[in-house]
């Protein structure tokens, strides 16, 4: 088990380096380097030519842009690992690491909340509909599941936006808190206020996850309910409720946990889509703006962060699975 984990970690590190390499290519691919873009940026603001050239040269030296690409990549990774420096954002005029540190907790909060809620609700619904196979509830939930996984989430977000802003006139939904709570210390009211603001994201990003989890759970539970030991439990005279909750569900849960590795990227993508449309101050809009403004270090760094998030999520799911299911052998 420990061996397996260590091996997974090592593979994970290599994967991260690979994702980092691709992210670095994304940084390097646009014509011109960061310094020449910085120079253009200065020129656009009316800085004299010599001044801009000098500043660009300074930047070039400061960020090692005059070195070979491979060395630059190593230095970039080294900067991230040792100092948490991801590169300079000239739109925000600070290091990308600081920007990420500001926004990552909020992103994680939303991602984890919507993921947890969608898993719990989805699994619950799956348990509820499985014994009612092909019944009315099952069919209705199947239709909704298909619908929620088919509607593009950004358009769901637009529809929510339309209803909330135009129809219900709700102010400031693209924030985490109402103005009076922004600098207030944490309290119950603040948390409640936050939920009042972020529930659309949780709902929209979570709906698809609910649908997927429900379908998977339903399928697993139906498989398990057909097993012989379930029949034994029934013939012992146990109530159906006990049979399902005590005997069938624990054995159907493993697949759900294993499935989280697939759902996680889907949920991250959902958060990204919805946050961009609603303009929440999470990583999503930062990423989008950086793509539009060609703020390359942000784009590359966030690509790496998203890769790391998904990787860590998958790893956690695997650990959880091994705890839940001792039958799994690691080779």
């Amino acid at each position, binding site marked *: 088990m420990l061996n397996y984990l260590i091996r997974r970690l090592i593979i994970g590190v290599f994967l991260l380096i690979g994702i980092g390499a691709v992210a670095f290519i994304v940084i390097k691919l646009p014509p011109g380097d960061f310094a020449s873009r910085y120079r253009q940026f200065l020129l656009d603001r009316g800085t004299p030519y010599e001044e801009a050239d000098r500043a660009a040269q300074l930047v070039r030296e400061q960020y090692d842009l005059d070195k070979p690409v491979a060395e630059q990549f190593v230095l970039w990774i080294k900067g991230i690992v040792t100092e948490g420096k991801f590169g300079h954002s000239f739109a925000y005029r600070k290091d990308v690491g600081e920007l990420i540190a500001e926004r990552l907790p909020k992103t994680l909060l939303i991602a984890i909340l919507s993921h947890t809620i969608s898993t719990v609700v989805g699994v619950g619904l799956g348990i509820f509909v499985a014994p009612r196979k092909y019944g009315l509830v099952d069919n209705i939930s199947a239709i909704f599941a298909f619908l929620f996984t088919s509607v593009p989430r950004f358009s769901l977000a637009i529809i929510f936006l339309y209803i909330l*802003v135009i129809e219900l006139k709700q102010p400031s939904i693209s924030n985490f808190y109402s103005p009076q709570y922004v600098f207030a210390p944490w309290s119950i009211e603040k948390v409640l206020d936050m939920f009042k603001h972020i529930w659309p994201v949780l709902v929209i990003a979570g709906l698809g996850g609910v649908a997927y989890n429900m379908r998977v759970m339903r399928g697993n539970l139906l498989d398990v309910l057909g097993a012989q030991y379930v029949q034994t439990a029934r013939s012992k005279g146990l109530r159906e409720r006990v049979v399902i909750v005590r005997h069938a569900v624990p054995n159907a849960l493993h697949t759900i946990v294993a499935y989280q590795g697939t759902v996680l*990227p889907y949920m991250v993508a959902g958060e*990204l889509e919805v946050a961009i449309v609603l303009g929440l101050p999470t990583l999503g809009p930062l990423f989008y703006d950086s793509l539009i403004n060609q703020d390359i270090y942000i784009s590359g760094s966030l690509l790496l962060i998203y890769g790391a998030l998904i990787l860590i999520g*998958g790893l956690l799911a695997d650990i959880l699975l091994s705890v839940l299911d001792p039958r799994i052998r690691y080779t």
Partner: protein
Amino acid sequence: MTDELSNMRPLPSSAISRPLDELDSPTSDKAGVVSLAESESHESESYFRLVWRRFRRSRISIVGGVMVGMLVMMAIFADFLSPTALNQIDLQNAHVPPQRIQFFYDAEGNFHLGPFVYNYVYELDPATFQVNWVEDTSKAYPIHFFVQGSEYKLLGLIPMNLHLYGVEEGGRVHILGTDKLGRDLWGKICQAGRISLSMGMIGTLISIIFGSVLGVASGYYGGWVDNALQRFTEFVAAFPGLPLWMALAALVPKTADSFTVFVIMACIFALLSWTVLAREVRAKVLSLRETDFILAAKEMGASNRRIIFRHLYPNVLSHVIVILTLSIPGVILAESFLSFLGIGIAEPLISWGLMMRNTQDIQTLGQHPWILAPIVFIVCAVLGFNFLGDGLRDAADPYAGK
């Protein structure tokens, strides 16, 4: 040698189980031929008949097929279905709301046999200067079918001027309203379907080629090739899909011509979506590799290429088609999101996502909610392909237990 191989068919069991000495005598040989011909005529239905028979049984997949078929038809015959020329800009009539189709009696009390519409005329709100569209009920315009209208080329070849419906000169008919340049939204949606659907299909087609090659190579050759390809597949599968798509799409130069942009976008979508397919193909090839008919082909000295293309791949193909159908929705969704953000398809091309770009502005959206109409078509396309794929998956293996 090769011709013989290709002519070989699985023998019916009766031919194999016959004792050898019977084969030697000329009379029984003749009988054998007869029984062979007979058994073929009623035993083996073609593969596609079997698939169709299974597919037909599931109602939901028929619905999916019909939905996809209708959307494809819409895309192909967009010019015919639109009442006006697709690119006819009419700034006087920008953002006109959908016209209600009326029946029987108009405001003057005249009876109409068919449906008719009223034109919208705009009024300025004296207080806010907001544009309000009101129906001009003074004149009803009956909707005619198969009318002569603007010239276009059907399928890009045949010059035509026939439109499915239209109204007389002076009237307008926009059943879904108009967009910011006064173009008919319904016609535009039909036209946008061309890019959205073909992007989905071409994107997955490229990924199919990629995934098939890698999957077959990995499954058939095994050994270190398999190992290396599997690690590579895992590596690519670990990428965060949507963020990488966004990053790559944003790198496409704004100045590139639209065809190049389309091809690059299709390749970007294919870049990450082949992994699922490669794995499935590999698994299928692995299970087939040790079967008797492959071993027989090998024993007969067939080359690797022959075995792969004549024996292995045709057996995997049904699987591939299923995955093709099921991965189109993902590309359609991703494409619409990227275009919606303005980093995907750009004008003069048009896709469903791009049509919704204006909805980013909450004010535009608030005043003209009907520009959300493309959502319905995206959902239809995604649902249609999913249903179709589900049905195909069940039908693709008709020899499995019924």
